[in-house]
C-alpha cells in the first residue's frame, strides 16, 4: 500500500465523520455547532503534518 495513503488512513477516518457532521449541521441550520469540528481537525492536521515531515526527512536521508 502507498505509504502516504497508509499514513493518512487514521486521519481520513475522522475526516469522513467530520464531513458527515459538517454537512448535517449545514442541512439542519445548526451553525452554532460548527465550532465543535474545529479542535479535532486542527489537532489531526498538526499530528499528520509531523508524520509527513518525518517521512519526507527519511526519504531525503
Amino acid at each position, binding site marked *: *500500500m502507498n505509504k502516504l495513503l*497508509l*499514513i493518512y*488512513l*487514521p*486521519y*481520513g*477516518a*475522522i475526516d*469522513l*465523520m*467530520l464531513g*458527515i*457532521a459538517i454537512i*448535517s*449541521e449545514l442541512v*439542519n441550520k*445548526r451553525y*452554532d*455547532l460548527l465550532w*465543535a*469540528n474545529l*479542535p*479535532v481537525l486542527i*489537532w*489531526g492536521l*498538526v*499530528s*499528520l503534518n*509531523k*508524520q509527513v515531515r*518525518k517521512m519526507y526527512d527519511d526519504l531525503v536521508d
Partner: protein
Amino acid sequence: MIWLIEISIILVTVILVVHARTAYNSSFVKVFWISGMMLGFLREVALGEMMKIYSYGDFHITLFGLPLIYLLFWTNIAYIGLVWSNNFLEREYLKAKPFGYHLPLIFMTGVLISFFFEALLSQYDLIRWHLDSSSRLWGNTPLLAPFAYGWTVVLFIKGLKILSREPQQNWQILVLKLSLAQSIVVLIMAGLLLLSNLAIILVFS
C-alpha cells in the same frame, strides 16, 4: 441520516483495521478490537443501563439491545488516539517508557472527538443525558461528556500497555486477559467520572 452515521462508524472501523493490520499485525488487530468490543459492551451496560447516566435514541443497528456503533466506537477512538499521539511524539507508546506525554495526548484526542461527535448525535437526539448538572456544552450535553470519552480511551490503552508488557505472549491469552480486565477498566472509569462530575459541580457552583 441515522443510517449514514451508523454505517460510517462501521466503515471507519474497517479503515482502521486495514491500517492496524499493516502498521502492526493481525494479532494486534484481534487483541485490540475483541477486547475493545468487550470494553464497549461493559461500558454501555454500566453507564447506560446500570448508572442510567444516559439513554439512547432510535438507532437502527443494535446488538443485545445496545447500539452496535457503541461497541465499535470506543475502540476506534482509542486506536486513533494511540496513532495520532505516536505520530506527533514520533515514538511508539506500547514500547515507550512508562511516563511520557502519550496519555495526556490520547486523553485530549478523546476529548476533542467528543465535541464533534456529541454535537452530531445531539442533532438527532441519539443520546439523551440524564445528569443533574447545570454545566452544559450545548443543549442537553453535559460538561462531563468529554471526560467520559477521555477516561475511556486512556484507561483502555493503559490496560493494553500493562498487560502486553510480558514478551512472547500468545495473542489468545492476551485477548482473554485484556477482555477480563475490561470490567476493572469500566469500574475505574466510573469512579473517575464521579470524581470529574464532583469537580465540575464544585468549580461551576
